[in-house]
């Protein structure tokens, strides 16, 4: 569809001969003109001749210019073509009606491999493909939106179930200089290998955590047996050392739990088990359990619980969320500091705030806090222990409840985490149906 190299070469030769011809005409015109100025013999016909040569020369110059531009466009087109054809991703162009105007080799190959219809508009092919994915409804709805909003950009990922292959599809509009829609570009990128690697990683995490949990069970179990005095009385040193070992084993269990939980979050399989949540009770339980640790660290821990109506959520997960936030605050607050846990209702949403007077978080790191394995530089510098999983877990729990989590912090002054949760009422209808 685009000019080949030889065509471009021939065009260049043609263009060169045109330019020479134009120059010749112009030279003749100039010589005739000079002749006219030197000896005015037969004025009128001579003038006509000069003008004729001038016009012809000018026209030839113009044509040569146009040919030049054409040639440049041709080579630009050839470059673009080469770029599109060399791409690993499938790329195709359609006009306003969805008729195909171009498809690169990768796209042609994908269509063949996926046995898509050879004829018809892009919409026919996409609909045929969408119906074979795990997200047919969502994709068809997205295509329908494209009909109403031509300027829309869409990116969707789905698995073609019968082929066992995943793809990220993307479409962007092609607009002319005045913003008129000319057509669309569609690209298809295969993500099968990425998804498989992710699945393997999740399986690995699950297996590893199982293999770790079994020896930990016997380590903790038998440490307890010894600590309870079943193998004879213990001296003070023995008791202290065994208690340290016992605590470390506990920390390992928590780490394994966190890893498993994060793997679940990343795999998108985190589910909440909803029930009636009484937020004040959840917060009171958390504060009561962590009070001992706070006192030992000489940090004030206070609870200000406002009235929150019971709502629909997962109490156990919310307790985990609060435990994580308060344990974090304890870790990052020096002795003599204070932590306040607040619950209440604002603008129809349940609000939980955990405010500490700790070391704070540099402002440029706040955006990274909820990523897994991220640790604030202030924590790393002070060599505070941690895995960078806690806040990722918090965010997942809040997301699963349809809420939001945010943070305000000033380095050296303290940090406040704020969680907002929708006050969902218990689904009475659903329960009535079950009964």
């Amino acid at each position: 569809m685009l000019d080949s190299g030889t065509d471009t070469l021939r065009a260049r030769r043609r263009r060169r001969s045109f330019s020479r011809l134009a120059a010749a005409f112009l030279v003749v015109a100039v010589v005739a003109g000079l002749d006219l100025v030197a000896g005015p013999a037969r004025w009128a016909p001579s003038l006509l001749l000069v003008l004729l040569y001038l016009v012809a020369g000018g026209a030839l110059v113009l044509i040569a210019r146009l040919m030049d531009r054409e040639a440049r466009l041709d080579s630009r087109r050839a470059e673009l073509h080469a770029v599109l054809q060399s791409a690993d991703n499938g790329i195709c162009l359609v006009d306003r009606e969805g008729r195909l105007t171009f498809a690169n080799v990768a796209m042609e190959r994908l269509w063949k491999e996926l046995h898509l219809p050879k004829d018809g508009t892009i919409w026919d092919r996409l609909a045929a493909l969408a119906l074979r994915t795990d997200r047919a409804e969502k994709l068809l709805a997205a295509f329908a939106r494209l009909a109403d909003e031509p300027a829309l950009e869409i990116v969707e990922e789905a698995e073609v179930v019968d082929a066992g292959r995943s793809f990220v599809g993307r479409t962007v509009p092609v607009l002319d200089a005045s913003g008129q829609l000319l057509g669309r570009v569609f690209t298809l990128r295969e993500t099968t290998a990425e998804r498989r690697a992710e699945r393997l990683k999740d399986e690995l995490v699950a297996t590893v955590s199982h293999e770790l949990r079994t020896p930990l069970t016997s380590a903790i179990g038998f440490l307890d047996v010894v600590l309870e005095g079943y193998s004879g009385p213990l001296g003070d040193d023995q008791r202290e050392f065994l208690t340290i070992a016992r605590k470390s084993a506990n920390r390992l269990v928590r780490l394994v739990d966190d890893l498993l939980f994060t793997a679940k979050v990343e795999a998108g399989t985190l589910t909440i088990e909803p029930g009636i949540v009484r937020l004040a009770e959840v917060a009171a339980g958390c504060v009561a359990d962590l009070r001992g640790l706070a006192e030992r660290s000489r940090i004030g821990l206070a609870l200000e619980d406002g009235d929150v109506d019971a709502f629909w959520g997962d109490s156990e997960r919310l307790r985990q969320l609060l435990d994580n936030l308060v344990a974090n605050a304890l870790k990052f607050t020096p002795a003599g500091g204070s932590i306040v846990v607040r619950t209440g209702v604002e603008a129809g949403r349940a609000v939980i705030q955990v405010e500490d007077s700790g070391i704070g978080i540099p402002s440029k790191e706040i955006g990274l806090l909820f990523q897994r394995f991220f640790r604030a530089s202030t924590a790393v510098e002070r060599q505070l222990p941690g895995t960078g999983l806690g806040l990722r877990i918090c965010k997942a729990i809040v997301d699963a409840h349809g809420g939001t989590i945010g943070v305000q912090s000033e380095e050296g002054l303290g940090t406040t985490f704020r969680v907002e949760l929708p006050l969902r009422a218990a689904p009475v209808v659903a329960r009535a149906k079950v009964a």
Partner: protein
Amino acid sequence: MTVAPRSGDATRTPSGIRPPPDRPDIPVVWREDAIGTRPLVLVADDDEDIRMLVTFRLERSGYDVLPARDGEEALELAVRHRPELAVLDLMMPKLDGYELTRRFRELEETRRMPVILLTARAQDDDVARGFAAGADDYIRKPFSPQELRARVQAILGRR
């Protein structure tokens, strides 16, 4: 702690374990002639340490223990000795905890025997699978002795 009499040498006897000095109420050793006076609990786990630990805790809580090294042995022992409760590990060679529970539910001898699954894989779907197979309860590894005792008592007390 002594060797459970009806199961050969399936469990190792931890030596040197004595009663806690402050708990004279805990029976130290049960005698051969006491067999049958305490409820019998089947404990199946392929990990010897865990089997020993569960056995130890259950014996201290007043139960006799029938230890099994894998699913097949557990099935055989259960049919022969009709224990009142089974504590089963999920991941075992030959027969895993799910399959073993299903077999128990099919056999006349073990149909009504309650099953507690002891699992290191306490993901929601694992737990659901356990209940679907016919288990009555589950305990996560690592477990606390209090939890083990409470769950066993709750199930045996119901009967």
